[in-house]
Each structure stands twice: as C-alpha cells, then as structure tokens.
C-alpha cells in the first residue's frame, strides 16, 4: 500500500517536472503510472497526491492550458521553484555548514539539519575539509521542544505549557523567539495572562507543550529586539570577601584570589564574588578548609545553609 502510493507520488513528481507545458488532469490520470480504479477514485487520488506533494513543499503550478478550453486547468512543477538554487556556494562554505550541522548529534534538529546538508552535498560541489577547529556544542535535554516551538513561532500560534516555577505553573504564551544565551536555551514571548514579555528556560519546561490550532493569533512587534529583554548579569555588583584557606589546599580559590596575609595553618585571601548563592556553595565545597571571615552577613548565611543539612 505504502509502496504503491510512494511510487505514484514519485512518478507524478517526475512527470510534472519533465513537462514544459501544463498537463491536463485527464492526461495525468491516463499516462502517469499508478492511477487505478473508477474515474472518481482516480480523481480523488490525484487531489490527495497534489496536497501531499504540496505539503512536502513542492510547488505545483496550475495554469490555463488553452485559451479555448479555459475550463480545464493544467498542472506542472516549475523546475525553478523545485530545485535548490545556490549557484555560488564554495567547498569551504559547504564544509563550514557540515561542521555546524553536526552539533545536533541526536537532538531533534538533527534530521532536518542532516537532510539540508544532504541537499547541499547533491549540488556537485567538491567536498573539502580544510578546517582544524573541533570545538562544538553539546546539548542535552530541552532540544526536543525546539521543533514544535519553531512551528508555533512561524505560524504565530499561541502555546500552552507547564513551567517549573514557584508561582504560576500553567503558562499561556505568544512565542516570539528561541534564544540560545549563556549556554542555555530560552523561549521569549508575550505571557498572555500577565501581558508582559517573559523569558523561559527550556530546561524548566515540564512535559509537553500544546500548540494552538489557530494561526496568526498575534504579531511580533517589528522593533522587537531580544537583547533588550535579557537580564543584565554583568551589572551585578562585585563584592569582596575575606577568607582563610588552609595551607596547600583550596587551589581553585587561591588561583583567583589575592593573598593578604600568609599564616601558619591558614592563609588569608581576598576573593571577589558576584552571586552569593554560587559563592557560598563554592566555599562550602571546600569543607573545613576554608572559613569566611568577612562579611559577617555572608558568614551567617553560610551557617544557615550548613544548619539546613543538619536538621
């Protein structure tokens, strides 16, 4: 069944591509292999096949065959619209694209990146690999949502999803852009319930998302610029703490700190930090080998954390 249909779709594509003039429906049904059954069944088949090919992105042009028989339209696939046309792509550029597309390993964008590359490799450009760079990205989980979100953005359809957050779980969003920022994937869009632009981390999405069946439900403002909405991390105030580090230990801290006073068992260092939580974790990580001297508030926060483990 699937075989017969595949064969028919290929034959139809070949025929419509080969023809210079428009082919009449009757010609197609008689001459293209695979159309069988009653006249009505054949016509239904043809209508479905046309839709199927169009869903693959193949443009089928409908034109008047003859001015005297204007009631009967004809069909063809214009070569220009069917074929990939990238006349001046160089070997070097093809190599760059191949490297880039290999980032996706097993993630959801891999199939489309790979089929895109296959098409480019079918253009007859000699393949060369003259790059020495090997650095790549490695993504884990959240990428399975990317495909669905992309489609929602393109068709301007709203999405619903659950988000792992302390306040509101169910979210209703007009998705604007997928952002890769600081090593993580985010979705930015208009939160319909809050009527404000919000940024969501994809790794905190819980379960599946649902995409509305409707299209063109919203517009993305033409002056929308993602970077205006990213939290500005770099303006966080840098503070300094004074700590004691046990002799010969805490090498990562010593690396980035400033030695104030060497001592017998402990050396005193000054360390800069931006984010308290992260810094406290780093200090605690060193166990009884690092002690916070100043600021006092940081010291009591540390004791709170440690106390949390003991209760």
């Amino acid at each position, binding site marked *: 069944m*699937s075989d017969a249909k595949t064969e028919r779709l290929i034959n139809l594509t070949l025929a419509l591509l080969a023809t210079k003039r428009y082919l009449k429906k009757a010609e197609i049904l008689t001459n293209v292999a695979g159309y069988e059954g009653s006249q009505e069944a054949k016509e239904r088949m043809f209508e479905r096949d046309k839709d199927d090919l169009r869903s693959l992105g193949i443009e089928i042009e409908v034109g008047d065959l003859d001015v005297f028989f204007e009631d009967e339209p004809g069909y063809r696939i214009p070569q220009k619209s069917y074929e990939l046309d990238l006349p001046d792509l160089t070997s070097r550029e093809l190599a*760059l694209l191949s490297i880039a597309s290999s980032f996706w390993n097993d993630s959801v964008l891999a199939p489309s990146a790979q089929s*895109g590359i296959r098409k480019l490799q079918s253009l007859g450009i000699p393949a060369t690999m003259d790059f020495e760079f090997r650095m790549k990205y490695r993504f884990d989980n959240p990428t399975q949502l990317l495909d669905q979100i992309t489609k929602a953005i393109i068709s301007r359809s709203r999405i619903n999803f659950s988000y792992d957050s302390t306040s509101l779980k169910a979210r209703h969003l007009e998705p604007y852009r997928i952002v890769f920022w600081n*090593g993580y994937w985010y979705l930015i869009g208009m939160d319909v319930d809050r009527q404000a632009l919000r940024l969501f981390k994809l790794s905190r999405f819980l379960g599946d998302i649902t995409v509305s069946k409707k299209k063109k439900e919203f517009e993305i403002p033409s002056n929308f610029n993602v970077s205006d909405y990213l939290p500005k991390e770099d303006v966080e105030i840098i503070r300094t703490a004074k700590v004691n580090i046990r002799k010969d230990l805490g090498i990562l801290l010593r690396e980035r700190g400033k030695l104030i006073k060497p001592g017998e068992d402990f050396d005193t260092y000054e360390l800069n930090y931006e984010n308290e939580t992260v810094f406290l974790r780093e200090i605690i990580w060193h166990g009884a080998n690092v002690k916070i001297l100043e600021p006092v508030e940081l010291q009591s926060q540390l004791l709170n954390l440690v106390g949390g483990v003991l209760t």
Partner: protein
Amino acid sequence: MSESALDRTARALDLIPYLLEHQGISIPELAQVFGVSEKQINDDLILIHMCGLPGYTPLELIEMYYEDGYVTVSDPQSLKRPRRMNRSEMTSLLVSLDLLKSLRTDGIAKEIEDLKTKLLNSLSFENPYVVIADAKSPEIVEMLERAITRASALRIVYLSGTKDESSDREILPLEIYQANNHTYLNAWCQRSGADRTFRVDRIQSAEIIEGKVINFKSSITSLEDGDPATELLVSKRARQFIEENRGVISSLEDGTSFRVKLQSIDEEWLIRTIVGFGGEIEVLSPSDLAREVKIRAQEIRALY
C-alpha cells in the same frame, strides 16, 4: 511504526540527486547518510528503480545499477538537482551556523556571516532563533583543537575540581565541546587508563609531547558493578543541581521535588556539592553518603 508514504517519497526524491553526485557509493554508507537501515535503503532503491516518466519503457525509467552493494545512477530522468530546502532544514542550518560562529573569534566568524547572507538571499525564511554568546576562544582552545586534529599527545597540569589538587597528566585529546557554559575536553588519560573529562578553564598548562604516541584501549568502562545506587531528593529550589549534572543523572522523577538517581560518580565531589545546597538536597540512599554529608556540615560549623 511504519513510515508514511510521504516521508518515503521525500527521501526518494533526495536520494537520486545525491546518488548522481556520489556515484558508486556503498549501501551501508548511503544508509548512514540518510539515517535509515540498509534494508530500508535497499527497499527504496528497488522502488525508485520502477519509477520514471510516462511510457515507462526502459528508456523512460530511472536507470541505476547496484552491484555488490554499490550504487550508480546513469539516468535520473527529471531528478537531476536536489529539492529546494524546506523551512526546518533552512532554520536548523542557520541556527547551526550562528552557534558555530559564537564559538569562533578567528576570521571564520566573518566568513560565516557572509555565508548566512548568501543563504538568506537565495532562500528567504524567517529565522526564529537568536544566538547570543560571546566567543571565548583562549589560546589553549586553539592548541587543543590542533592537538585533536593531529592526534598529538599532551602533557597537562590540571587543577582537579573534585579533589582540590593539581596533577600532571599525559593525555590524548579526543573531543572538545561546550555545555552549560563551560568548555570541556574529553581525553584518554594515561595515568588513569581511561577516558576523562577535563574542564578547560582548569587546565593550567598544556604542551605537546613531540614524537610521543599514546595508545589507548578504548571502551574500558570505569563503572563498577555492584556500585550502590545513589538516590537523592532534590527540592525545586536546588534545580540548578539537576541542570548542571544532567550528564550523570540516570533517572529523574518530577513531583513536589525531584527524585533523582545518579550514575556512578565521584563520592567526594558529591558530598561537598550536597552540603553546599544546604538541606535542599536530601540523600535517600546509600545511608553512608547521608551520614558523611552530615559529618561534613558539622565540621564546617565547628570552624566558626
């Protein structure tokens, strides 16, 4: 489970122009390129073999030969050129290029920008992705990349984040990548006789050992059977722990808090990390680990 006729048609239409440019390609290679089984490729080829133009005499059929597992196309009929790229192909290539660009500080970044313009001029699509990243490509990265390409052995001084010590190691670098905003190097480590992952910002120095060949026995696993399963209860406030350690999490259950099972992991590192989350991570098993975490917390408290 069987694939739709449409997916198959799409692949067949791509297969023919690809074959035309890769004459004499083997079935296994073809299967790999198209990401399907060899049997599937065989079935596809048999099917394509029967397609052609109206008339369907041998002259009008797609003509190809496959002998001893190698395929050649001599007459593709009207399928000489690949199909136009669709939206998802185009967008995934564009975002791939943006990602690649974000990794480079060298002249490549400019080249990529030109390439993107070229692609967008020929095929205009809305790109729903935005990549914002500062390429940080210190000298050491370029050196590691060169060492990977040339399979050169390296001597490195490494500050271990799990042990709080620095060590000299001879390694054969294999793979370099960024994940969660850090740069990592996978390498065969002579000293431990196994693959190891190093954080590049903790490599203090690296030099190529001229003329040295490190042979590594691959597929040695450092996992020991009978390792007691580590199970944690991670509160939502400690979700960062999960985000940063996905690589070692073997199962994750979501609820009012996350129930997490870990693969074999450096215990010392784990203890220190758990204490830092101050009670937001509870050790369910093994009980030794739970006890050790408490002891550490007491030791720290005793400092003050």
